[in-house]
């Protein structure tokens, strides 16, 4: 691999990692409230189809993003209701949300007299800056020359980090995820906090989905996001529930998605690795990362919210 290929690979990894940043930061916010939402894949798909639809109808990318965010948040309410109000198994409810969201997205793509499915997007997110400073060596391709959502992802991650660790509401949120009973005795409305942050997670998942249908693969097909939703859930652990680390974790996985092909193009000995093995790379990386991070003493520093996945019963104290 020559230098320019390395830079281009990193550039591509940043693009591929961007939807993962949105979805992972969203899931971090949700899990910080003590709710595990395995419906990320479903929410991303619904966000992807809703965003595509809005842009297809209006020609506005901004509207596409707004509608995707609303759609993701709306779908997450189902999980919030099931896990917070009904207090059922969050795993069952989250999986159901993924199945439901997958089917719903496919259905919506075919609904109506002029179905969306099989159509290219009317508008596509283009690089914010092209030519000029975007052509500067190294800095140009790595930092400049991306579309606006790449930068929005940085803002979202930084904002979420600030919110979680530097604000009063962030403190309440973390308290709810660690020990909801204590948080409640301190005057925090546990149910309200949980609802709000499940929906925030859904909104970001929807945005991540729209990045696929409006930027990465600007078309509507039945299954345009691969396994991104599932990878995002794994990335939460890799990022140890910290939004800042989620950026790097997401780019690492973006790189894994890309490197499997780059390795096939750079000649021997790399091209001798079976492509089927390379196709496993992102998932292999996820498993290895989880084993390394959760084994032994490191697990204590990982920062999983103590009440994650546990329904909160006010009356059972």
């Amino acid at each position, binding site marked *: 691999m020559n230098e*320019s*290929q390395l830079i*281009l*690979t990193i550039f*591509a990894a940043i693009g*591929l990692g961007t939807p993962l940043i949105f979805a992972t930061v969203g899931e971090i916010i949700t899990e910080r409230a003590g709710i595990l939402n395995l419906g990320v894949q479903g929410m991303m798909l619904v966000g992807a189809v809703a965003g595509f639809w809005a842009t297809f109808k209006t020609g506005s990318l901004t509207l596409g993003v707004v509608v995707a965010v609303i759609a993701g948040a709306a779908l997450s309410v*189902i999980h919030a209701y*099931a896990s917070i109000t*009904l*207090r*059922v*198994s969050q795993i*069952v*409810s989250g999986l*159901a*949300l993924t*199945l*439901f969201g*997958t*089917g*719903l997205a*496919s*259905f919506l*793509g*075919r*609904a109506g007299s002029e*179905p969306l*499915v*099989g159509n*290219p997007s009317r508008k*596509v997110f283009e690089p914010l800056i092209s030519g000029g400073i975007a052509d500067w060596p190294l800095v140009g391709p790595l930092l400049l020359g991306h579309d606006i959502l790449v930068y929005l992802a940085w803002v979202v991650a930084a904002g979420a980090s600030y919110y979680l660790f530097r604000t009063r509401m962030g403190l309440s949120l973390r308290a709810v995820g660690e020990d909801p009973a204590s948080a409640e005795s301190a005057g925090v409305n546990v149910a309200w906090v949980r609802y709000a942050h499940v929906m925030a997670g859904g909104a970001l998942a929807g945005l991540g989905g729209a990045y*696929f249908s409006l930027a*990465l*693969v*600007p*078309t509507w*097909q*039945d*299954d*345009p*996001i*691969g396994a*991104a939703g599932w990878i995002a859930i794994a990335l939460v652990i890799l990022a140890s529930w910290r939004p800042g680390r989620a950026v790097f974790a997401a780019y690492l996985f973006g790189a894994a*998605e*890309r490197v499997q*092909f*780059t390795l*096939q*193009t*750079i*000649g021997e000995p790399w*091209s*001798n690795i*079976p*492509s*089927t093995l390379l*196709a496993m790379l992102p998932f292999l990386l996820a498993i290895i990362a989880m084993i390394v991070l959760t084994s032994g003493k490191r697990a204590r520093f990982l920062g999983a919210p103590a009440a994650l996945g546990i329904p909160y*019963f006010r009356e059972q104290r």
Partner: protein
Amino acid sequence: MVKTKWRLFATILVAFAMVAAACGGGDDDGAATTQADAGGNAGTEAPAASEGDVLKVAFVHVGPVADKGWSWAHDQGAQFLKSALGDAVEITTLESIPEGSDAQRVFEDLAAAGNGLIFGTSFGYMDPMLAAAENFPDTVFMHATGFKVSDNMGNYFGAAEEARYLSGMAAGAATETNLIGYVAAFPIPEVLRGINAFTLGAQEVNPDVEVQVVWTSTWFDPPKEGTAAQSMLDAGADVIAMHQDSAAPGQAAEAAGATWVGYNTDMSEFAPTAWLTAATWDWGPLYVETANQVIDGTWEPGFIYGNMADGMVALAPFGDAVDQATRDLILEREAQIKDGSFSVLPDPIVDQDGTSRELGDIFTMDFFVQGVIGSPEG
């Protein structure tokens, strides 16, 4: 606690209802479509008693028929069948049916529902269909892209390599870097044939051209296909070709200012500037012929291998990026392919290492020709 259990029960019920709704939605709208519009008899439901008059024909696809690719091309064939035979046939279409043993149940359900002719349009349906054919000896089964036949199961495919050779000529003329990127699904004979014919076609107009192949290990995964194309554009390729079912490689080429050879159908709307041409399928005439044979009782099992001469394989319309001289050259070759005076895969043939070898059985092809970069083993 009793209250809690009830709530759990209620929620699981809700969850199941949601899943059922999701699946049901697909059924109503796409998964099981009865195509009655083309013949003008919307919503005809043939009662069991009239099955002697109406041939029920079923199609089972591995992907969504709206993929504008492989499954879409077969669905176009189904619509052609409906428009040709009208009330004489009633068509059911099942899409996104996974390959593997569960497909057998799908085929048997269709046979039990009175379908007299069942098409399965993906390689992985071969063995499940063979098993179903054994259990339903009075139903005619037709499998695409495989090689097994039985008393009531036939097989059909076509020489896409002929059109791929021609699309390779367009690509060879278009490239300035002399590097063409080829996004390929799986290292099976069908795909290797296509890559080899494409490369030979490109070399005919441009002897210096090389074709870089990357494997995706999937027929249909748009982000993956797009990423694979991008990796080759970044490695210096300025033309992208593909053996995949989505248009994502073309969109990557369009964004990069490169050109693109598609597959299956005219996909030019996805990348109008990048579009060169593509090897495409026309399954309609075969479907009409087969249905007529089943109706007449003259159907015989066998292996059908269509080509450009009989029209099963064709070349998509050229994009603006193909210049007139190249078009003339391609059309001249097309005429020779059709009249049998030109063979796209020569015998003997020079392989990747530069050694001349016998062409052998093209249906078990396991090597690359000279000029292809990549491993034919995947």
